[in-house]
């Protein structure tokens, strides 16, 4: 279990514009976000000695960013092979690296040209080797296709309805309308959702997140150092990473996963809340990984905000709206702000806890949850101001 409660903090955040075509390289995006995070914290670039990122073969290595920024001695410069599952993992790992003495000030980032460059949601010509030889030849290739299989099981097990999925999309878009950085701000209603075209049933277009170019970064340091920096620190209370049995041979593969109506979140719940010393009822705002609408339902259940199978009725009650009992994805999430592989959730949580979220500020937000992952493995973090 993560044992560093409140010892480390996020002291700075930085991000590029989010767009469909950045017109620049992923390295430039990464450098911009990282520089802004360091400046936001008020840390000299020379004092940064760690960089951590994750990618899918679609980004730049941490050492490239260290080189670009002229960091004199990058020590803990590490890349995780991962998707959205790793978005909180890298920040937890930064704290662990500082605790161990491997680094003192660590930049965590995710950078991608996810629309104009390497499109995760798109088709690729597969060498159908390894586990892929049992999936791709049947036309099972894209992530929407992979995850529709999970959504279907939730519908089979619990009677989850399209309208319940639609509520997740509508609520996200409502929040995005208040966020000037969001890529999709036009309000949608249930008719818009239900009439959006089928992509891979049970998913409609509006169940599926955006594809984005952009980068975001946070600066992690010790709580002591953070207190001397420019902003009120946002402390890492707790965190967890993992999943259940049979997480698969890659992030797509869930052939042997026992029960696709529940995901990683049910398996890391106890470690998450145990490490933070609080429970779901203490959360003021939750940024929940929403690569697809269904994943929000599964994580609401998995992390214990409602009972198993009750995610649909929970959102239908209005609970996740900004004025509901658990405001979710206050920036618009991956569905409406941008898809920076979940890392933009962390920045929004920090803004909410700093009280810097402008029009979309949740009053008196003291404790936030950020989650990352939709299938067999994932990560989550509890932050407080």
């Amino acid at each position, binding site marked *: 279990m993560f044992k560093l409660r409140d010892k480390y903090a996020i002291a700075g955040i930085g991000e590029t514009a989010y767009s469909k075509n950045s017109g620049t390289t992923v390295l430039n995006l990464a450098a911009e976000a990282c520089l802004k995070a360091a400046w936001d914290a008020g840390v000299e670039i020379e004092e940064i000695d760690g960089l951590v990122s994750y990618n899918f073969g679609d980004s730049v290595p941490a050492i490239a960013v260290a080189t670009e920024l002229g960091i004199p001695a990058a020590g803990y410069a590490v890349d995780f092979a991962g998707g959205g599952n790793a978005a909180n993992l890298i920040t937890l790992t930064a704290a662990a690296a500082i605790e161990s003495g491997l680094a003192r000030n660590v930049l965590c980032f995710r950078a991608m040209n996810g629309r104009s460059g390497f499109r995760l949601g798109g088709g690729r010509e597969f060498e*159908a080797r390894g586990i892929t*030889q049992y999936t791709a030849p049947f036309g*099972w290739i894209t992530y929407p296709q992979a995850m529709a299989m999970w959504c279907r*099981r939730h519908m089979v097990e619990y009677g989850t309805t399209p309208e319940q999925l639609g509520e997740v999309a509508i609520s996200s878009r409502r929040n995005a309308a208040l966020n000037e950085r969001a890529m999709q701000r036009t309000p949608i209603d249930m008719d818009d959702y239900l009439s959006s075209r089928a992509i891979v*049933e049970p998913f409609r277009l509006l169940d599926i997140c955006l594809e984005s170019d952009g980068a975001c970064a946070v600066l992690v340091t010790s709580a002591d150092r953070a207190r001397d920096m420019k902003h009120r620190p946002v402390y890492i209370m707790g965190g967890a990473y993992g999943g259940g049995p049979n997480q698969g041979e890659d992030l797509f593969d869930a052939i042997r996963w026992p029960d696709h109506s529940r995901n990683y979140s049910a398996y890391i719940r106890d470690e998450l809340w145990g490490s933070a010393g609080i429970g779901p009822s203490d959360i003021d705002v939750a940024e929940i990984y929403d690569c697809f609408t269904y994943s929000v339902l599964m994580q609401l259940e998995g992390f214990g905000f409602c009972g198993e199978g009750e995610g649909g009725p929970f959102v239908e009650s209005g609970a996740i709206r900004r004025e509901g009992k658990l405001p979710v994805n206050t920036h618009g999430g991956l569905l409406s702000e941008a898809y920076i592989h979940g890392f933009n959730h962390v920045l929004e949580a920090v803004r909410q806890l700093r009280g810097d979220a402008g029009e979309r500020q949740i009053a008196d937000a003291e404790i936030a949850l950020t989650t990352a992952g939709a299938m067999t493995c994932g990560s989550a973090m509890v932050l407080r101001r």
Partner: protein
Amino acid sequence: MNQMLKPVPAPDADSRPFWDGCRDYKLMVQCCTECETFRFPPHRFCPHCRSEQREWVEASGKGEVFSWIVVVHPVPREVYAGDVPYVVSLINLDEGVRIVSNIIDCDPHAVEAGMRVEVAFQPARDDIVLPVFRPAKG
């Protein structure tokens, strides 16, 4: 310019007997001879007891639909435009393993959880035969 084609499996040391079986219109599944647990995909060690002792057994070819999707938007378009809508399913074989396949000879919207299906074989390119499934008779 590369013409986009449907992916075909590249058999390896573990999978070759599976794909060879398909070419003979047999659905072969690996079984641990120590603990007698079936497994899919095939690999060197039994994930149940870690034994390397294994054999290939012809499966009944029968199972039921665990989950399924209906692909409506083809990706890549030029490869799958002629196939949509098509069904991809996670199928629980009666032997206790789950595999991925298509469900053919069935209205995509008539597929349901627990539906009984049976294997059929469909030649693909490059000397490969794919095991697909259709609603079980009777």
